[in-house]
Every structure is written in structure tokens, then in C-alpha cells.
């Protein structure tokens, strides 16, 4: 099958959706002539014009607020927040408005838009430009949150997000933009709220998010060479959580490792641990473990950042340790 990069897959999903649905428009900083800080929206201004690809000033709160506003009267905005680190500026609109308006209006309002963002850990961007903060949104029911790891999922999830009636935070990973994979040209969906078992195994469940899916798979190969078969789950959707897939895997393997580019404490992994402990307690044979970043802000210095980041090697070591517990 045809291969696309992760970035191209996102762009194609958006572009095709814009062709079929007049309600969709894009707004964000430097998404037009610049093509997006990372190039994701390259060519879309030329294709769809200024009316549908709107370059905004640096106003993250209002970009999000405008998306809320346009969507409650029937448009379908796809807004971009350039770095996930800038989401705190948009946090009120996202968490206190977008996520809650449907509920608190007794179902009258239907904010329904996509907020795209990305995280740049691993690119020497320092503490204010590297954060991956999905776990915040667990406390924002009403919002859906996805973080694809493959080009296939990137397109398929984007398609589902566009169809979705709730607001969705779509978290991309800058380190994955150039990774390639098979992507059908025709329309397809990857369901929101459904984790994907990327590798079957019987000895340990590795729940991974975004970039760390790849590292987890690499670790699984190494483990396999030692006779340990890891089941690698690409959790993909942060909210709503696919508890079933995770719990049934943990029941099978009895061991749970979580890995992502978040800082360990308060990560999505903490919730995964709680779920396992609530729903698969009797099956657990070893302590839970997390392979995340340490609880410190991201250092700029490239060698320090490298040490700071989780990777396949660290997953491998941690998995061995709990396997041998």
C-alpha cells in the first residue's frame, strides 16, 4: 500500500474532509503561507483559500474560544495550538467551556471542534516548548483526547474526530512527523476510545502512548529474544479510556508497564495503574512500573535531554525487572 508520513496523513485527512464538508475551516498561528510551524498544513491555504485557512494572531485563548463559538452555531473548526505548552493559555476555553457547555446547558449546546496540537520533546526545545500533558484532560470530562502514534491512526483518528460531536484534543508528536507508514487514500475511521494491541504477548502488558509505542515495540523484540513475550497496547485515546482492552490484557499477563513521554508523577500512567488495581487486582503478579520522564522540567541541553527521555532501552530494563520480580 501507499506510504505517507505521519504529517502527510494528518494533512490528507484534513484536506479530504475540507473537500467534502463546507463547514470545516482551519484557524491557528502560521498555518497559512507558512504551512504550520511543522509543515502539517502546507498547501492548504493555496487549495482552500484564506476564508477556510485562517492565520490568526498569537491568541491561543481566543483561537479556542472562537472555535467554541463557531461550532455552537454549526461550523466545524479545526484549530491549531502550535505547541502543547501553549495550551495552558487556552485552558479556560478548553476545559471550563468547550468540555462543559454541553452538560451545563442541559444538552442545548454542542461545541464540536478539533484542537490540534503537538509536543516536541526530543528536539532541544527546553522546558517551555517540550511538554506532553495529556493527563490534565482526564479531569475534563466532555472533552475527548487522542494521541496517535502511526500515520494510519493519525488519518483514521482525524477522520473520526471530524465526525465526532464532542470537542476533541488531537495531540500530535513532532518526533513522529516524518515517520512513514501505510495509509489508504480512501476514507476510513479509527475509532476514538479504542486502544490497539500492536503486539500480542502473554508475559507483560506494556501500555504505551504516542512516540513511546515505537520504543515499546523495540523493547518487546528484545524481550522476546529473552523469551519474554510482551503485549504492547497503543492506548491512542486518552479520553475516554479503553479500560476493557487494558484490563483484559492485564488479566492475561499479570504485569503492567506504562510508558510515555510524560513526567511520571501524575501521568496518564497513574490512571492506568489505578484502573488495573481496581479491575484486575487478583491477576497482578508484579508491581506496576512506569517508564516516563523524571519529575523535572525538560532540560534544553541535548545530551541531558537525551538522558531525560524514556526510550526502548529503559522500557526493556524496567520490563525485565518486573518480569523477574
Amino acid at each position, binding site marked *: 500500500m501507499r506510504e505517507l508520513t505521519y504529517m502527510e496523513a494528518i494533512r490528507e485527512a484534513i484536506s479530504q474532509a475540507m473537500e467534502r464538508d463546507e463547514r470545516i*475551516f482551519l484557524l491557528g498561528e502560521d498555518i497559512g503561507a507558512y504551512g504550520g510551524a511543522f509543515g502539517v498544513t502546507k498547501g492548504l491555504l493555496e487549495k482552500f483559500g484564506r*476564508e477556510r485557512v*485562517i492565520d*490568526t*494572531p498569537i*491568541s*491561543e*485563548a*481566543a*483561537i*479556542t*474560544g*472562537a*472555535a*467554541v*463559538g*463557531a*461550532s*455552537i*452555531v*454549526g*461550523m466545524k*473548526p479545526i484549530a491549531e495550538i502550535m505547541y502543547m505548552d501553549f495550551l495552558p493559555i487556552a485552558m*479556560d*476555553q478548553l476545559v*471550563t*467551556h468547550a468540555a462543559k*457547555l*454541553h*452538560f*451545563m*446547558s*442541559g*444538552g*442545548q*449546546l*454542542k461545541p*464540536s471542534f478539533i484542537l490540534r496540537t503537538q509536543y516536541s520533546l526530543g528536539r532541544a526545545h527546553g522546558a517551555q516548548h517540550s511538554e506532553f500533558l495529556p493527563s490534565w484532560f482526564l479531569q475534563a*470530562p*466532555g472533552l*475527548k483526547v487522542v494521541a496517535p502514534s502511526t500515520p494510519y491512526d493519525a488519518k483514521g483518528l482525524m477522520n473520526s474526530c471530524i465526525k465526532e*460531536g*464532542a470537542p476533541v484534543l488531537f495531540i500530535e508528536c513532532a518526533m513522529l512527523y516524518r515517520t512513514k507508514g501505510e495509509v489508504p487514500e480512501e476514507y476510513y475511521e479509527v475509532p476514538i476510545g479504542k486502544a490497539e494491541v500492536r503486539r500480542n504477548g502473554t508475559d507483560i502488558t506494556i501500555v504505551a502512548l504516542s512516540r513511546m509505542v515505537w520504543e515499546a515495540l523495540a523493547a518487546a523484540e528484545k524481550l522476546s529474544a529473552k523469551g519474554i513475550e510482551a503485549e504492547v497496547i497503543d492506548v491512542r485515546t486518552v479520553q475516554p479510556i479503553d479500560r476493557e482492552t487494558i484490563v483484559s490484557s492485564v488479566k492475561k499477563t499479570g504485569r503492567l508497564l506504562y510508558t510515555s513521554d510524560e513526567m511520571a508523577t501524575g501521568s496518564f500512567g497513574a490512571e492506568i495503574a489505578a484502573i488495573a488495581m481496581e479491575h484486575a487486582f487478583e491477576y497482578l503478579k508484579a508491581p506496576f512500573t512506569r517508564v516516563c520522564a523524571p519529575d523535572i522540567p525538560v532540560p534544553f541541553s541535548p545530551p541531558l535531554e537525551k538522558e531525560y527521555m524514556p526510550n526502548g532501552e529503559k522500557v526493556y530494563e524496567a520490563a525485565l525487572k518486573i518480569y523477574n520480580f
Partner: protein
Amino acid sequence: MAGIRTYSNTSSTREGLNTVGKEALISMLKKMVLARRFEEKVEDLYLRMALISGPCHLYLGMEAVAAGVSEALTRDDYVLATYRGHGHAVVRGVPLERIFAELMGRELGTCKGLGGSMHAATWKDANLLLATAIVGSNIPIAAGVGLAIKKKKEEKIVACFFGDGAVNSGAFNEGLNLASIWKVPVLYVCENNQYAMSLPVSMGFSTSIAERASSYGCATYVVDGNDPLSVYTAAKEARELCRRNEGPCFIEARTYRLKGHGIYDKALYRPEEEVKSWTSKEPIENFRRRLVEEGIITQQEYDEIEREAAERISEAVSRARASKYLDFSSLYNLVYP
């Protein structure tokens, strides 16, 4: 400051009154009376009857703003309100029992009882899109609604109400600027009631609100917010500018709340003199007197307006009280559409 237009005392002259038809004048008066009596009933239901609880911000004294703007809008226009939104809901024609029921947390409420007083002014059937409890937050949302109107080439505008306090929020800058570079049909209405909770405008600003607004290049009006006709005149003009793609527009309506910020606030931070002076400018009595003086309505007709308001309110309260609470289990289905 350049480009700021002022309307005040428009009802004080016969000429002023003549600029609009009798029908609009009476309509505004009716709206104001209904909004006033509504809030008085809310006070009673809250303080004496204990049928309402939680934060509750009354619109008492500010009725001319909602009435004047609402009169200038069409039914198709959108409105975004705030936590001080009962007045907007009433003048917009939201069924009174729905508003009361919302304040009481009942299923019949505009938001099924999930919003409460601060969100009661949410009623899609009247294009009253939302009432926010986060100061300033509806300003960028309005820019988005305006953008949608423009994209869909509809003959509408959106009116967005907020207080003087909202002007110092970050959302104001971001939202007003987006609306102004997009040239979208948003009528921003700042209800300057002289206080953000206890902070007087003089302490919150080093210039005027209108000056701040007009620096975005939008047509800006300063109006006497206690004179419905001044408000109406500016809003009508602004609406037309919006429809001619000259939006957004901005109205600073200078008014005063007759009571505290919230229902329990005794507003002791306000100088007595000031309260007295503003109370004498109270909008309804002044407008009634003018309309009677000029023979636009008779006192009997006015009394009938009052009677009708009282009757509608009393019926609405009964219906609201008869409503049940939502079943808790149904909340789970309201998180996602």
C-alpha cells in the same frame, strides 16, 4: 477620543422619543418592568422562601441596557449573556417558568437545572446561546459566532454582553482583536455598572472603557445605560454597521446596579452619595414618567403592564415549583452529545 459616539438623554426630548415608534417604546418599557419584577420575585424566592440557592446576581437597575439592545435585535440574532443574565433571558422572551425553574434547579429549567442562576440565560430557542460564569470568556466565543455568521452569509449579528470587569481580562484583548481583524458582525455590549464586584471602575482603569475598545478600530458608543432609548439608538446603528460588514461594534452602557454584586452583598463599599445619585437615575421610573408625560401611554396602561407582569411571574413561579428534579442517572448521558 476620536470616533467615540455618545447617546444620552435620548428619551428626554419629544424629538428623541419620536425617533422610534410608540410600539418600540412600549415594548422596551414592558421588558424593563418584566425584568424588574422578575428579579424582585427572585429575591423573594431566594431570601424569604429559600427556593433558590447558590450564587445569584440580580439585574436590578440595569434593565434599560438589555431592553434597549434587545429591541434593536431581531429574533434571529444571537445573544451571549453572563452570570448576571436573568434580565437578558427575560427580555429575550425565554419562558419565565423555564428561568425560574433553572434557578430552582428543576428539570423544567432552561438547562434542566444543571446550570443554575449563572447559566439560566441559555436558551437556544431564543438564540440565547450561552451565559458564562467566567468573566470575559464569552468575548472570544462571540468572535467565533460572528465568524460563523459571516461564513454562512446570514443576515444576523451576535450581541455579547459583559461587565466593566471583563474589559481587563486577557480574553477581551484576544477576542476583540480577532473580531476586529475579521470584521465580523459582533455587537459587544459592556454593561458598565461602575463596579466589578467591589472594584470601582476608577480603580480598575486608568482611562475609559470606550477608549480601550475603540483602540481596536471598532465603532464605539458610550451611552446612558439607564435610558433605554439611548441604548436602543446606539444598538440599532451598531447593528446596521455590523450588517454592512463594518463590525464589530462596541457599546459602553453606563449604568448602576441598585443592589449588591450578588444577592447577599450589601455593597457597603459604595459611597452613599453615589448610590443616592444613581438611584435617582433609576431607569424604569424615569422612562415611565416620560412616556406618560408625553402621552405615549396612560398611567392606566402602565398599571396594566405592571399587572400583567405580576400575573405572568406568579404563574411562572407556580409552574416552576411544580417541576421535578432531573434524575441523577441521566447526568451520565449529558457529558457527551
